[in-house]
């Protein structure tokens, strides 16, 4: 046959990836992004006349295992009602059998992009919202397992959304990995475990080893510590990193889970203490550091007292002359 021209090949590449939606309710408008196994499009919901995000499995992920993962992600999103987790609207199957789900269209930027635009305090406040969201998921028996800046979005008003729950692990009550007690359907997904899922650099050592039984909320704490480190340290000279924050992420990213914070809430408490210029549990401070922290905490009062004393001194000097 005649060789296909470049333009034809480019056209085929595009149309073969585009999802073929049944029923005519949704109209795909624009590709928003590609993830590990899914593609997200902006789409029009013709029934409700609104813009939505549509996530569909990539063509090469049309196998049963990937479908189970996407289905499970949809189930998780439906179960978790929280401002930090994208609400899901619909679930369906494409004409070629691939799963898709429809969710709220999120407008915002990735956490790492956001971090480059604001100061340290604002970065930490946003990080606390991430911790609150992850803590909420933990309280509902879920470990995210792929927390990293690329999976966290920050909206125009500083609202935080934690994305990509496709490889989250369902825990039994008490934070232990789910065993035989998980509901039917959930156990199917657990058969996917054993392969290494996650992102190097943000993945806890037990997760990187594929030690599934060891993965629990502390694995997420590790990832959160790595996220904190990237928020504070990326692009900042070594000497400008506040030692208490360094201690916090070092504790969170300890190789041994037992040494880490036991929960996102405990990590959040230490970050909050730092923001309030209080001593953090992970850091033993020297007297100079303590003085510096107290100065930071009582800066206004100290400056007022110093100004008052300076004026008194000036007044006494003037009286003397």
């Amino acid at each position, binding site marked *: *046959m*005649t060789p*296909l*021209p470049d333009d034809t*090949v480019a056209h*085929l590449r595009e149309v073969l990836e585009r999802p073929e939606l049944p029923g005519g309710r949704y109209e795909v408008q624009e590709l928003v992004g590609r993830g590990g196994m899914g593609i997200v499009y902006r789409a029009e919901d013709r029934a409700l006349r609104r813009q939505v995000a549509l996530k569909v499995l990539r063509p090469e992920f049309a196998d049963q295992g990937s479908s189970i993962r996407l289905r499970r992600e949809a189930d998780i999103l439906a179960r978790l009602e929280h401002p930090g987790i994208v609400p899901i609207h619909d679930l369906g199957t494409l004409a070629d059998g691939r799963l898709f789900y429809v969710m709220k269209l999120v407008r915002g930027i990735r956490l790492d992009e956001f971090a480059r635009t604001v100061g340290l305090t604002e970065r930490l406040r946003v990080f606390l919202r991430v911790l609150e969201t992850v803590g909420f998921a933990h309280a509902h028996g879920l470990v995210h397992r792929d927390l990293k800046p690329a999976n966290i979005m920050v909206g125009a008003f500083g609202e935080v959304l934690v994305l990509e729950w496709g490889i989250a692990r369902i825990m039994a009550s008490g934070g232990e990995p789910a065993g035989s007690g998980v509901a039917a359907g959930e156990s199917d997904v657990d058969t996917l475990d054993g392969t290494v899922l996650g992102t190097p650099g943000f993945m806890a050592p037990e997760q990187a080893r594929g030690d599934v039984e060891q993965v629990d909320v502390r694995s997420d704490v590790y990832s959160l510590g790595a996220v904190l480190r990237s928020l504070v340290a990326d692009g900042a000279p070594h000497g400008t990193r506040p030692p208490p924050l360094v201690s916090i992420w070092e504790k969170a990213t300890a190789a041994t889970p037992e040494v880490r914070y036991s929960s996102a809430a405990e990590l959040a408490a230490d970050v909050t203490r730092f923001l309030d210029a209080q001593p953090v549990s992970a850091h033993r401070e020297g007297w100079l550091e303590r003085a510096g922290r107290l100065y930071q905490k009582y800066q206004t009062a100290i400056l007022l007292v110093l100004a008052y004393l300076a004026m008194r001194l000036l007044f006494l000097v003037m009286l003397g002359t």
Partner: protein
Amino acid sequence: MTAADPDARRAALHALVGVYWRPVYVHFRIHWAREPADAEDLTQEFFAAAVAGDFFAGFEPERARFRTFVRVCCDRFAAKARRAERRLKRGGGAVHLPLDFVGVEQELGRVADAAKEDAETRFEREWVRSLFEVAVEALRQESQRDGHEVRFAVFERYDLAPDDATRPTYRELGQALGLPTTQVTNHLAWARRALRRLVLENVRALCVSDEEYRAEARALFGREGG
């Protein structure tokens, strides 16, 4: 590529040659600056060597993609041929494959910047083109066999149009083929679904692991660089 069953081995080599002859030829033509006749000979000889022996037996999936490995094999083969300064002979007992070198030359003539691309990009571009060509041909044959010529005709006129300017609208296409517009879109959807399946089957046949299959498929779909 190292299947012990002779039939499986033949099928694997057939799939390999079908998809790779074109990128291999273009690589010899441009990267090795071979004249068309030389590049043809080298391509024939390259695959003849693959058919005759365990040419690809040294492939180590953990080190590189198969596609990269084939390109490296091409380089070794071309370097060896150049060193020996031997002129490859056509025929002479070697396998002679029915490959459309003239068509490739015509396409190369249209791509003025081909020589400026790096070898990897060019090899990938030709690999993608080959995969689609092989799948389109398989779709054409499937359509004929199953009596779906009209579906293929819709697909051919719309999706295989040379560029956007010459692509008809659904309405124009429907009028030309005597079909309602809804039928045009249905036929197109069918053909794309079938083509996607055929392309992915070919990719899977040429990969040794799920990981490589997914990485290759990822490079295949979507807008280039997207």
